[in-house]
């Protein structure tokens, strides 16, 4: 028996790689010897809609979805989506948010909708542990925008008990061989970002 009990919510927009990130995390937890369930809804959401993935990790997991207000970690691939999903977070939970902004066409074409001016600042007024990550910039520096998910997983790994090697093994298994090195580099870049190293 361990007393590990993690609820993680990963959110983003269709096509951003939310599902791969949640796969990696779930497999790490399983290989660590814990029970895992994860749940997401595919379908309409992939046409540019919101994608969310719930991951629950413990000795024994029942519900595959998280209760409102019970997520220990919120990982958001897009800043406004992070703000939208905050209701799922525990008050003392941590949010890891990419500064990415994806403004949908409906906001452009209809006056009544507005994209929040500063989603991350608003998040900081609601909870203490908000970690903003310039994941897009970091991914671009590494030469591949698709690395955002691995970078965010690297940041998350700092807050979890799973040993580094377990993460790297899963990445090696999950990623096409020619992308393994760059993904590990991206993961390590994320891992350099710690709560203490960012202003809160």
């Amino acid at each position, binding site marked *: 028996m361990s007393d590990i009990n993690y609820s993680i919510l990963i959110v983003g927009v269709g096509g951003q790689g939310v599902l791969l990130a949640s796969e990696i995390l779930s497999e790490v937890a399983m290989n660590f010897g814990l029970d895992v*369930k994860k749940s997401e809804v595919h379908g309409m959401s992939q046409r540019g809609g919101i994608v969310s993935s719930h991951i629950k990790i413990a000795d024994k997991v029942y519900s595959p979805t998280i209760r409102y207000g019970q997520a220990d970690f919120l990982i958001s691939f897009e800043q406004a989506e992070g703000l939208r999903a905050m209701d799922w977070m525990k008050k003392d939970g941590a949010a890891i948010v990419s500064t990415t902004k994806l403004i949908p066409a409906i906001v452009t074409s209809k006056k009544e909708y507005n994209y929040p001016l500063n989603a991350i600042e608003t998040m900081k007024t609601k909870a203490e542990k908000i970690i903003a990550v310039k994941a897009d910039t970091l991914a671009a520096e590494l030469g591949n925008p698709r690395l955002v998910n691995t970078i965010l997983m690297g940041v998350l790994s700092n807050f979890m008990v799973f040993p580094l090697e377990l993460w790297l093994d899963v990445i090696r298994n999950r990623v096409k061989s020619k992308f393994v090195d760059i993904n590990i580099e991206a993961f390590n870049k994320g891992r350099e970002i710690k709560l203490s190293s960012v202003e809160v």
Partner: protein
Amino acid sequence: MKELLSGNEAVARGAFESDVKLASAYPGTPSTEILETIAAKFPSIYAQWSPNEKVAYEVGVGASIGGGRALVTMKHVGLNVAADPYMTHAYTGVNAGFVIVSADDPEMHSSQNEQDNRFFAKFAKIPMLEPSDSNESKEMVLTGFELSEVFDTPVLLRMTTRISHSKGIVEISEQTTGPDRKFVKEPSKYVMVPSNARGRHVIVEERIEKLKKFSDETPLNFIENNGSKVGIITGGVSYQYAKEVTPEFDYLKIGFSYPLPMKKIEEFINSHDIVIVVEELEPFYEDQIKAAGFKVKGKEYFGNIGELSPYRVAEGFKNAGVIDEVKLAGIGVEKDMFPRPPVLCPGCPHRGAFMALKKLGVAVTGDIGCYTLGVMEPLNAMDTCICMGASIGNAIGMEKVKGSDKGTVAVIGDSTFFHSGVTGLMDAVYNQSNVTVMVLDNSATAMTGGQQHPSTGKTLMGNDARKIDIPNLCKALGVKRVKEIDAYDYDEVITCLKEELTAEEPSVLITTRPCVLMPKRIMDEPYTVDLELCTACSACFKISCPAISASEETNKHGRPKAIIDESVCTGCTLCAQVCPPEAIVLKSQKVEV
């Protein structure tokens, strides 16, 4: 060995371990991945996409009668389409085992209704299994085939989106060996003429009595005693939600859910002070338990609309007075957030069709597929969408009563046309309707992930297939006015539509541009906005392309000029065609100053 599998992957694994010989289906969220996984991972099973669920079902019945175990899968509404063979299949029973998977969609994440298909088990008197996680999904496929053969009946495995699309740890086993059966002539069992069917109905009733006994005895329906005065009767994913919220209560967990284990239920009710039924959607258990004369509570606390969740179950328990408080979220919902509805992709050929239909202001009877997104703001170019294949019949009826002064156009995708549009078109010809039908042929079943279909030239297992030619099919049905058009040519689409709307006979316009995502990604040279020329008229915003957004630059009235995200623009040209000042140009032709 353990693997992390979705419910759908677990069903596929279960089919493999059960030595299934044939799996057939028509795609439909949330069921699609079952057959995709079988085709990708278990090549020993012959797997195929059929044009619709009815045919898929009948193919499965043939395999079963022929001696091979058969798995047939579909989304909940698919069983409406397959209901005809399904209902009578209860009478014939099986030779080799037959399991049908119905994947229901509470909350309608990707569906047009949230019907509760558990009623289909009771309706047909077919036994039903309801898994509550991935491991059970796999195990229940194995159990399903055994039961099917022991009781000589098809078996319904009822999944829901949360079971199909959640992953959990599954214990993997070796493949077992299915029964060694061959086809034997037995018309009294398989030819349902009235004289035979009367005899078979008696067998159905006898069988259901045996199944009631089985339901009371099977460990699939089990009691978890924790010494609580509160007893919960539950099944499917609701079991997980309730266990999460109140592990301390006693549980009667239902895995074999039709017919219900009434004796076990009676014992359970008699040994508890309060018994609450927790089930998603309709009061399927509750009504039967009440009809048997027992006092239970349930729907008054949980409702019958939408998905349950741990939160909703907790709320229900609080209202029932069995828990004191519901731990509420601490942070609260952010108000006034913009919506992020699904939209047609950049470069989607359906966009050209809907731009033209919007411009003409005709009545548009719609259908189901990616193109249903033509209803969304700001295209707003679809007026009906009921079920797959309905567009053509709807248009015929609308046109017969002269419902629209500007004419009626039926819009239907290629996969949907094969599914159930062909018969509608036959009706149009036969009954001399002058409807205009647009078949949006993108050579894919795009909505559900790009599956093959009768005109894509490939089968599910990756073999080459003869392509069924849509224009020739229409002509063979007797449509004289059949024309292929380019949905990227806005003026052409408008001209052709106008011409066909005035024709005094049915006509079919087929758009032929392929889907830009599947099977391969299409990226031509992107377009860009010349901000010098852009007047901020917003014409390009109205075509609802995700590649186009407001730039920081404004015109003198402060209205934003447009900008194109070149990394996602496919170069379809539609925005350039509707730009009055011709400010949208090919990237290579933009004059840099």
